[in-house]
């Protein structure tokens, strides 16, 4: 859609503006409506007696920041996964990374006496990494390497295995069923920034590395032989991408549970705008992902007020029709 770099840059700035609007919306809208001026005053002269200021600082702001971070990370993870597998349906949730993380969290909560949320987070991270590895390995066995259908089936098998194991553990150990369930479904509410900080450095490094290797990804997509003849070490790039996906998707699941479909939808929207040049696609997807999660989160607060729809359900409701659309269009390789 945007043919030249100038238009791409202007488009990017427009996205940035939309992102800021979504961010502000996420702070001011909710069960307690907060005026723009109060929100503004929270940051210039904070008054701890003022309930609205307290809500902004302790609830809304952390929530908006976490939504932004996981939106960026999941979207980039999706871009990378679709590039490495050349599969337009590849994304963290479809390939079972979420359910892996969830299983290990429930396992740990049943058998280990973990106390802090940070410990749970590392467990989730480990689970995500393990299931990524598992699905990837399973999807790549055979003569023709990774094919779209094999990868999806492998993902859904691993998902089903982890899901029923999780259900089994939950049936045996019903204490805290609902809290775990809410976490599983994906939510950015009630998360504090302390939960984000341990994984944030890894996420930032991963985003930076993704941008750094974006040119190599472009070359890799033009075919392994071409890339190799141009001096790109495709094996190394694929390994690096695998590690980045684990940090980005695993970190997001660790912080917010299973917020699905962001990694599936956003890369497609990004490609619609800027094509498959990853030097543009990665930053575009990052900002679009943040916008989508922020808006989905705002919407989630209003549907069954005063209660909230878990954001994972919101993104699934948006994501499934999209998934079906792509499935109907035909799974062509990228």
């Amino acid at each position, binding site marked *: 859609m945007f043919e030249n770099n100038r238009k791409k840059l202007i488009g990017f700035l427009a996205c940035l503006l939309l992102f800021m609007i979504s961010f502000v919306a996420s702070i001011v809208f909710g069960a307690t409506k907060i005026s723009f001026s109060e929100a503004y005053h929270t940051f210039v002269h904070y008054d701890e007696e003022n309930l609205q200021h307290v809500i902004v600082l302790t609830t809304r702001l952390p929530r908006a920041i976490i939504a932004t971070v996981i939106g960026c990370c999941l979207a980039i993870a999706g871009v990378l996964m679709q590039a490495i597998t050349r599969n337009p349906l590849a994304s963290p949730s479809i390939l079972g990374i979420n359910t892996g993380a969830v299983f290990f969290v429930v396992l740990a909560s049943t058998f280990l006496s973990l106390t802090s949320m940070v410990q749970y987070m590392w467990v989730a991270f480990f689970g995500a990494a393990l299931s990524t590895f598992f699905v990837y390995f399973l999807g790549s*066995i055979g003569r023709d390497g990774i094919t779209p259908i094999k990868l999806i089936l492998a993902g859904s098998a691993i998902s089903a295995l982890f899901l029923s194991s999780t259900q*089994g553990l939950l049936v045996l150990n019903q204490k805290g069923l609902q809290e775990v369930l809410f976490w599983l479904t994906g939510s950015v509410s009630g998360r504090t920034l302390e939960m984000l900080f341990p994984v944030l450095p890894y996420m930032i490094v991963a985003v930076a590395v993704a941008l750094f290797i974006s040119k190599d990804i472009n070359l890799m997509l033009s075919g392994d032989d071409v890339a190799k003849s141009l001096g790109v070490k495709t094996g190394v790039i694929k390994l690096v991408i695998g590690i980045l996906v684990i940090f980005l998707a695993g970190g997001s699941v660790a912080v917010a549970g299973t917020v699905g479909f962001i990694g599936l939808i956003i890369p497609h929207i990004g490609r619609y705008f800027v094509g498959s040049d990853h030097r543009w696609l990665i930053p575009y997807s990052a900002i679009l992902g943040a916008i989508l999660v922020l808006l989905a989160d705002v919407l989630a607060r209003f549907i069954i007020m005063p209660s909230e729809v878990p954001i994972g359900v919101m993104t699934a409701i948006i994501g499934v029709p999209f998934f079906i659309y792509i499935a109907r269009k035909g799974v062509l390789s990228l």
Partner: protein
Amino acid sequence: MSKFITVRKGNFSFLIEKKNLRVMSVLFVSLLITLILSIGIGSTLVPLSEIIQTLFGQGSKQYDFIILSLRLPRVLVAILIGAALGVSGAILQGVIRNPLASPDIIGITNGAAFAATAFIVYLGGSVSIKLLPLAAIIGAITVSVLIYLLAWKKGVSPFRLVLIGIGMATAMGSLTTFMIVVTNAYTAAEAYVWLTGSIYAASMQKFYVLLPFVLVFVILALVLSRNVSVQELGDDVATSLGSRVQLQRFLLVFISVILAGAAVAIGGAIGFVGLIAPHISRKMVGASFGSLIPTAALVGALLVALADLIGRTAFQPYDVPAGIFTAAIGAPFFIYLIYRNRNK
């Protein structure tokens, strides 16, 4: 002597290989042994002589309650659920011509589970729980129709059907979790145990609800079974042989959906039985549907009855839902299937 036994009654006829009849007999005997074991084993052990006497109505009062009210209904319901899922999977795999198809992979089970959860959460208490199976079946049918329509694009390709099914399964799964999250803790736990696939608290009443469904539709499946064999030759060949492909496919899928829906309605989402029972059966009796359908019913019944027996007895005092064992066997098997088809 002929290798086959011919069954003929008016317009209806089919052949059964004698070898296959032997296989079925062995399965049937295994099922009987499982039934006896299920009645005998548990926190109270019942001696074999008592079991046999009780089953023939001659039992002493001592074990009547345990056998007739607790253990017998449970194993009978497990057998029916397994049979329904096995036949449902066998039909789907034949009609979709895909070894990976099964009611739970392509989303039928999730549709039933969604409707049943909605029933428990929103109508629980106000409407008789006896209507729960009906809700589940309506859910299964609605989702199947939706999947079929969405996968339709100048015909239904098996690959698209599986993909769309996976998408719909995810959607239904999310919405189900959502309902559980927003409801109160008690209802949530009730729905959750049910979802995992447990035959806990089965009663003769549930058995009698399920029995007519399974009998009628398994027999219908048998009657229509030769059409599946014709369909497996491909649409063009089948049409030229005088088969009304679309109508028969619709009827077969309909039977499959009803069977899966009824099984889910009573037993919850017991996974992977519809996937693996037909595969095991094909290994035993080959791909001809006249033998495959009864064998798949027996294998499915055996799987669920064994899973329930293990879940009930191996981890006492916990009663581990049967669905967990079927998934523990089924998911690795599914992975193996992907591995075996890796070069296709």
